[in-house]
């Protein structure tokens, strides 16, 4: 739960504070309600924690964060966590 996971914004939802993000090939919706309105746009990078964007980062920082997760052996856990975010996915 203490992971901070870098992801790239693919799309911003119209009605809710949600962004579709890509994390290592897995795409999920995350909540962007903890960022200022209009802070992120498609193509931007964010740091994700328990389904929420914590901060906007640049691409270099995203790469650094990925490298760190890999070095900590936590990159698999990070993908597993993102894959588990089901709160804004269509019902199975």
């Amino acid at each position: 739960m203490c992971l901070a996971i870098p992801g790239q914004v693919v799309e911003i939802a119209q009605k809710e504070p949600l962004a579709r993000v890509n994390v290592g090939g897995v795409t999920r919706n995350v909540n962007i309600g903890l960022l200022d309105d209009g802070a992120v746009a498609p193509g931007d990078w964010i740091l994700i924690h328990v389904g929420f964007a914590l901060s906007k980062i640049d691409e270099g920082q995203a790469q650094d964060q990925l490298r760190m997760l890999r070095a900590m052996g936590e990159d698999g856990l990070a993908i597993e966590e993102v894959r588990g975010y089901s709160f804004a996915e269509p019902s199975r």
Partner: protein
Amino acid sequence: MKYVDEFRDAGIISGVAREIVRAADPSRLYRIMEVCGGHTHAIYRHGLRDVLPANIELVHGPGCPVCVLPTGRVDDGLAIAARENVILTCFGDMMRVPGTKGTPLELKARGADIRMVYSPLDALRIAASNPEKHVCFFAIGFETTAPSTALTILRAQELGVTNFSVFCNHVTIVPAMRAILDSPDMRIDGFVGPGHVSSITGCRPYEFIARDYGKPVVVSGFEPLDILESILLILRQLDAGEARVENQYKRIVPWEGNPPALMALARVFELRPYFEWRGLGFISQSALGLKSDFAGFDAEKLFNVPGVRVTDPRGAQCGEVLKGVLKPPQCKLFGTECNPEHPVGALMVSSEGACAAYYRYAMHASAVEA
């Protein structure tokens, strides 16, 4: 050093390590506390103690949410799970934390409906799709995680979901640091400050530590180079007789924190008068509870939880390890009765707990250090 070599900046790391040796006065002992469990994990994983001179001791702090949660609160949460028609949801880290009657995972195996979630919003979704059940989210975490719980509660209110509640165990890091500074058996010369917590709180909350206690605080990133640089910045302050709050993790941490997140916290939560921490005891104004406006979502108000204080398992010295008085291998149960497969105490559960990190990465050195 094994893992440090994997980093592209291994050369820079050696350079910083040499500067640390130069900056450290060989005639004195330095005790530096890394507050955050993420730093503890990184320090062991990368073998950073091996590049530090022997007179710099790293003391592992209380910044691991499952580690500081006392057994009584685990029991309270599991008492909620034992109610009829209740689904208890929690993060994966919680699933293996032992309560008096077992871990959430064991209780689940015995029939309780306990589900792991990756986000509090997933717990809310489970509530929305199970209207005949009550869904409680066992919330843990520091300021990094608490805003997510706050927004989830606001969302539940907005959607009019009435079968959802939060068993709130969110804690705040600064009162714990103050308790450590006030503890007579602790002597800490400086703090490596938490990274992601500070991205929410900013750096100002640490200013009293420099001002009133005269100790440097350096908010740090999580890469080996970040942690070593932060230690160097602390040594330089000590050498110059200064005490300031410095921000080594500027790339993520704004000095003023994250205003929307702080607003969400202020809207939903209030400080509890006191809260029990494993190892540190009761600390005043150190935890968050739901404001009365949100009483309908407050599991402690909806369910009459036992609220019993439970001592650590016999022989386990989690408290002493958590305060940094003992090193993990100095605990009587370390590596024998208490191990990652069968954790007796929470510090052996989470990868950010000092005992689990020590067990995983530093066991070979334990004979020398213990």
